[in-house]
């Protein structure tokens, strides 16, 4: 797909928006305002914006526990998402779901608490998309840790043999909590797994939003045209610890973190946009300022928003 200037600005905005919401929640977590867990996705924004910005509303996206940039770019309502994380009644599941969000209206699939349960969900979504015949496609994000789960095989195989319209996108950030991918995955690259399912496999620089967008949208195109699934591995990095509140331990070196932070996807794209003359510093700063305002308002609203009544605990188990 050929990106216009507006497209690029949108990508930039979506990356920055994810980052700002991520930072806001991180801050709230550290103030003790978040009752549960929080997995910051800072560092993953190029993947987030790249996979989600140009999908159709009725396409399906499965995001990971680090998927706030991705979700927002797909249409997730920031207020409802934040309220859910704070356990408020205004959240997507009235505060009953918590960390994992789903938004059927905006095509966001069920994000499971068991890592690797994304594969069957996405396979089912792909099957529904294919059978219902409305040209929808599915993008399923998963980590290098998730890539170790058994479910990957049964579901990528299903997608392959049934030719389902699914783009599998691995966010390989090198670690599953403290375990390095080299100590947990036998294959040289996760993209190599594509070979087992007779689908194309590609490796992408996950800090380069244009490359992510291009490769993912090509695969989306393939899927939409009935040409079946693909696997894309984005090499990326998480800048913060696995879960907020965790202290860094020697599983990775400071130098490694520092090297990767030099490849901050937002900074890289900012340089590029300025370099290309697509925008001015002022334009970009204006986007930032506007987002700051939005985020601040959302946070204020969410913090003020009410807790669910206790009776809510006993509803929504069955459809009546």
């Amino acid at each position: 797909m050929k990106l216009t200037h507006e497209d690029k600005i949108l990508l930039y905005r979506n990356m920055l928006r994810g980052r700002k919401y991520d930072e806001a929640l991180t801050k709230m977590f550290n103030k003790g305002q978040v009752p549960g867990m929080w997995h910051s996705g800072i560092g993953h924004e190029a993947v987030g914006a790249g996979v989600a910005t140009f999908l159709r509303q009725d396409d399906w996206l499965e995001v990971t526990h680090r998927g706030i940039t991705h979700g927002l770019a797909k249409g997730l309502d920031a207020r409802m998402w934040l309220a859910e994380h704070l356990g408020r009644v205004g959240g997507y599941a009235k505060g009953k779901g918590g960390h994992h969000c789903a938004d059927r209206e905006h095509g966001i699939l069920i994000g499971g608490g068991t890592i690797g349960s994304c594969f069957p969900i996405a396979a089912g979504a792909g099957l529904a998309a294919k059978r219902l015949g409305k040209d929808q496609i599915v993008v399923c994000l998963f980590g290098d840790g998730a890539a170790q789960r058994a479910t990957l095989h049964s579901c990528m195989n299903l997608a392959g043999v049934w030719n389902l319209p699914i783009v599998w996108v691995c966010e390989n950030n090198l670690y599953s909590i403290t375990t390095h991918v080299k100590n947990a995955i036998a294959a040289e690259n996760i993209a190599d797994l594509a070979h087992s399912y007779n689908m194309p496999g590609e490796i992408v620089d996950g800090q380069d939003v244009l490359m992510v967008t291009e490769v993912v949208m090509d695969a989306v195109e393939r899927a939409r045209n009935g040409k079946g699934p693909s696997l894309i591995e984005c090499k990326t990095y998480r800048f913060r610890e696995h879960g907020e509140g965790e202290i860094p331990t020697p599983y990775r070196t400071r130098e490694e973190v520092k090297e990767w932070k030099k490849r901050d996807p937002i900074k890289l794209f900012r340089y590029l946009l300025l370099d290309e003359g697509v925008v001015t510093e002022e334009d970009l700063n204006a986007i930032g300022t506007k987002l700051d305002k939005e985020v601040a308002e959302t946070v204020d609203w969410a913090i003020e928003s009410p807790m669910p009544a206790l009776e809510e605990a006993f509803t929504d188990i069955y459809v009546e």
Partner: protein
Amino acid sequence: MPEINMRQALNQALREELLHDPTVHIWGENVEGVGGGFLITMGLSNEFGERVKDSPLAETAIVGAAVGAAYCGLRPVVELMFADFTYICMDEIVNKMAKVRYSFGAYNDVKLPIVVRMKVGGYFAQSSEHSQTPLAHFMHTPGLKLVFPTTPYEAKGLLKTAIRDDNPVLFFEHIIHFAAKGEVPEEEYFIPFEEANIRREGSDVTVVAIGYMVDLALEAAEELAKEGVSLEVIDPRTLEPLDMDTIMGSIEKTGRVVVVDEDVTRCGIPAEILMQIFEQLTEAGKTPVPMARVGAANTPIPYSPELEKAVLPSADKIIEAVKKVLV
């Protein structure tokens, strides 16, 4: 009314629902052609094409995909060849299927219309991994409905209700029932959930029996009638929702109760139903009635047929339990 067996009754229900609703899709191992391990889907793939499709041998994918597909607009009716294989896809059933509406659906009014059909039951020398009747796990899991028909008539009517239900339903079919014949109307009908069926009226002891245990309880009732003991045999048909009213009504009359289940006794369904009875009586200020339970022994299911019988419930064991509560 034509007499058909339970296979045919189930097949009719599936066919009617495939015709009724284009979002009904079937997949599972070997469901095409003559229809898998137990011939239930026979002929349907010829009529409905890819809507009735062989899946790979992968229970996580079969059941997990049902969750994703139902979220996205299909009404999957999937088959697990043996209920023992639910253990392969428990994460998909317990952590996903059962919880989606609660954890993700409140705002979006997410419905998850799924039926997972599966063969259960022992007495067939199929050894410890092909003979289980694992309902208790799922009755312990909020968010699922559980259906267990015992006649061809019920099989058809309950399966149609299950497929129309907007909640995930686990549907259990006992191997011994497949060949059993019964009258089944040709016109469409539905059997509502949460309506226990009084299979035999009686006055001395209430016997609540689940699945194939109904047959054994009726056998026991026949036997005991000769001794002048009158059993009321109740088949709950659905365990969730569970029609406790019919059970309590019967106990009101008989003053004694035995609950029979094929599954392992320990932490099983009979303990649950009996506790509910105890609680309801206590709540109402009544004294507890004599109660007993019959279930499988605390062992894996052995292969050798006499050993298997020794471990599983039998009419004799029901009679023994009835005699206990009669004292």
